[in-house]
């Protein structure tokens, strides 16, 4: 699309939306939010960019194809699932660091699991949408 307003707005909105999605991801454990919604918001940010500047440019901006995020997210989620096994605990036992870390808050295996979900959602949504877009072009 050739709208100057949209272009200008998008270049500001992309980082803000991404930051917002991370915020949603992190606050998920205590307030409404979480990896799934966070991932969707981040994908919307990229889709918006794609609408404005074209999918090719978005892919260039991302450097790696979003499909890469799928195995990365799955691996992270799986690792966080099985990490407790190394300590002799059942699979998916929640492990937490006792003291909260500044800005991020409490860090535990569930956070990494959620991060995995976040990455997978971005990967899936963008792969599907960009594949269809490119098919159309």
């Amino acid at each position, binding site marked *: 699309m050739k709208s100057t307003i949209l272009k200008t707005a998008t270049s500001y909105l992309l980082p803000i939306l991404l930051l917002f999605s991370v915020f*949603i991801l992190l606050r*998920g*454990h*205590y*307030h*409404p*939010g*979480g*990896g*799934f*919604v966070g991932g*969707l*918001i981040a*994908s*919307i940010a990229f*889709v918006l960019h794609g*609408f404005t500047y074209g999918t090719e440019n978005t892919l260039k901006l991302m450097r790696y194809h979003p*499909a890469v995020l*799928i195995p990365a*997210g*799955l691996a992270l*989620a*799986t690792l966080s*699932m099985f990490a407790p096994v190394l300590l002799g605990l059942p699979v*998916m036992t*929640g492990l*937490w660091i006792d003291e909260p870390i500044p800005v991020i808050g*409490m860090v*535990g295996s*569930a956070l990494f*699991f*959620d991060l*995995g*979900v976040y990455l*997978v*959602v971005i*990967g*899936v*949504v963008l*792969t*599907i*949408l960009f*594949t*269809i*877009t*490119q*098919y*159309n072009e």
Partner: protein
Amino acid sequence: MLIAVLAGLIVSILFIPFGKFFRQQAAIAVSLLPISLFLYFLSYIPVIRSGLPVSFHYPWVPSMGINLDFHLDGLALLFSLLITGIGSLVFLYASSYLKGHPYLDRFYAYLSLFMASMLGLVLSDNILLLFIFWELTSISSFFLIGFNNDDPVSRKSALIALAVTGGGGLLLMAGLILMGHLSGSYSIQEMADNAERLKNHALYGLILLLVFAGAFTKSAQFPFHFWLPGAMKAPTPISAYLHSATMVKAGVYLLARFSPVLGGSDYWQYTLLIVGGVTMLYSAFHSIFRTDLKGILAYSTIAALGILVFLIGIGTPESLVAASVFILVHALYKASLFLTTGIIDHETGTRDVTKLAGLRHVMLPLAIGGLLAALSSAGLPLTFGFIGKDLIYEATLHSPGILRFVLTAVAVLTNIFLLYAGFLAGIKPFAGSLPQQFKGVHLPHGLLWIPPVLLSLLGVLFGCFPAWIGEVLLHPAAQSMTRLTTVAPLKIWHGFNLVLLLSGVTLALGALLYWVRKPSEQRLSALTRFNALSPEQLFRRLYRSIIKLSVWYTNTMHNGYLRVYLLRIVVFAILLLAFRLLTADGIVIDLGTVSPVSIYELVVGAILVGGLYLSVTTSSRLTAVAATSVVGYCICLMFVFYSAPDLAMTQFTIDTLTVVLFVLVLFRLPPFLNFANNSVKIRDGIIATLFGCIISLIGLLVLSEPIRTEVSNYYGDNAYVLAKGKNVVNVILVDFRGFDTMFEIVVLSIAAIGVYSLLKLRLRATEKE
């Protein structure tokens, strides 16, 4: 023991990374696996001989009663030794027979897998474990039979073998579960201890039927015998292994193993006698018409299996000893004959028995091996076959009543035919003068001819010292099928009696038949005229009609129109829910629990209805999509009103993305056309309204149910205590029900890969054009 059973599986997995190396350098080294297993099982002989079975217990899924329980007694040991012993020879033989074959590694992988599953089958004490190995043998034999996978006939016979044995396996599973359920234990030993409980149960007949279905399909009993001759399409080492000692004996093993559990009743006895008797006569008779060496062997194998089933059916201690002797006799001579046939085929390029002659001039050791095997199959004195035949006659003669004459007559007839078949396969190719075309034939590599000769010699050795092998191996085997009270040692000489007379008659008539009758093509073709009536043709017809049915079903039910799918799903849901609501005791709706409607909700509801109206009536796709998304956003607002912010957020983002997706796809569609005429619209409208009404009704019904709060209270109380989170929804997603989430993201990934590959593959196809 666990390692011994699983070794084959492990080795077959190792072929995936190291297959190429094995194929080129170390094919023969794989034979170390069965050889070492053979030695391992040999070391158990002294223990088993003393009458003490050995049990091994490894917990696996104890909560479901599935454990890796292995039980090594006489019967299991006999089979284990056959599996690993003949396995060793087949492994060695194949390394030379298939030398340079491009898929030699694959061959050994399947063979190891098969050997491991057979071992597991005969050693399992837990019937569920037994079933798992049973199915594994079906699957691995499928790969083995279809090994020449570029030959359509070979593929077809592999499929038929799998369909028949696999179908029987399913019935067997039902039978086994029933057995385990009724007797309260999944261990064969425990079942045998209180066998009366099963035998007196009302469902005993059904159990028998199911178990028989499994055993008869596997052991190729009439009318399921037809898959076995078809399976001869496999390379000869495979036929030798599958049909002499292993695969087809699995059904016999199952019957022998369950003899103490299910045996002894009239149903058991007469079914086995009739099926075994028909099978042995039918296929022994058929075997003398074949001209293909492997065809002869195939039919005589079915006959031998019939004899075994028949002997187990008689069920006296005598007949069970005879069965265990005959298992060994048959395995030795049949494996030897198969391997000999393989060499003949390999060296001369034909298996047609009418063409083969005089090969003793060029392959003397093999001729001796073939002769000995044929004599053992004929039951000449001083071969092991003689002992086997004697015992069979003794068992039939000692059966009660009038039955004795019928059974003996059947046994004598079968043995005459079998003698003829054995002579055709073991003597005919070597006798007479050597035709010109085979002058160039020479004795192959030692790895090829030593195994069959060794097996034949063993047959003679056991025949000369029957008491020894009987005491060491065969009596313990019979002992695990029944309680032997008196153990009569196996003897060569029983004195002049009826049994000896019958043996003599068999030999004389069989030899006469061989002398008089020459195999010919005409006789074979005369027999094929009856093929239309054979069970095989019936099976093929059934097979074709199943395919037709599935084609019809796919075309009518899965016609590719999304709207038709949706319509069917919704209509089905309506019918199901309406049926449930109508049969309920009475519908009580308590409107008192419904909260009053606020002004916000009214406004949002009005917008929603407006959006709905627009989306149905508009003639522009984009408008329709936008209107539907208005509906979606209105629902989000409803979620917000009823304090479900997580849900609202997710729904909101999903709705946005869905619109984007729609817009992307809309580009591809042709201009808007309204296919639906008014009657279709009315039909859809009625269905949609009905569905909406039913869902609303159910929603209201749920409200009037007493609310159960245990689960939500548990989550509420423990979210922070156990999972350190204050947002219960998120804690459920990432912690309490984390496994669900895990599978959900896996499903999402699969969807993404699906879209990607579908569209990308399409792209490449169009690029090519």
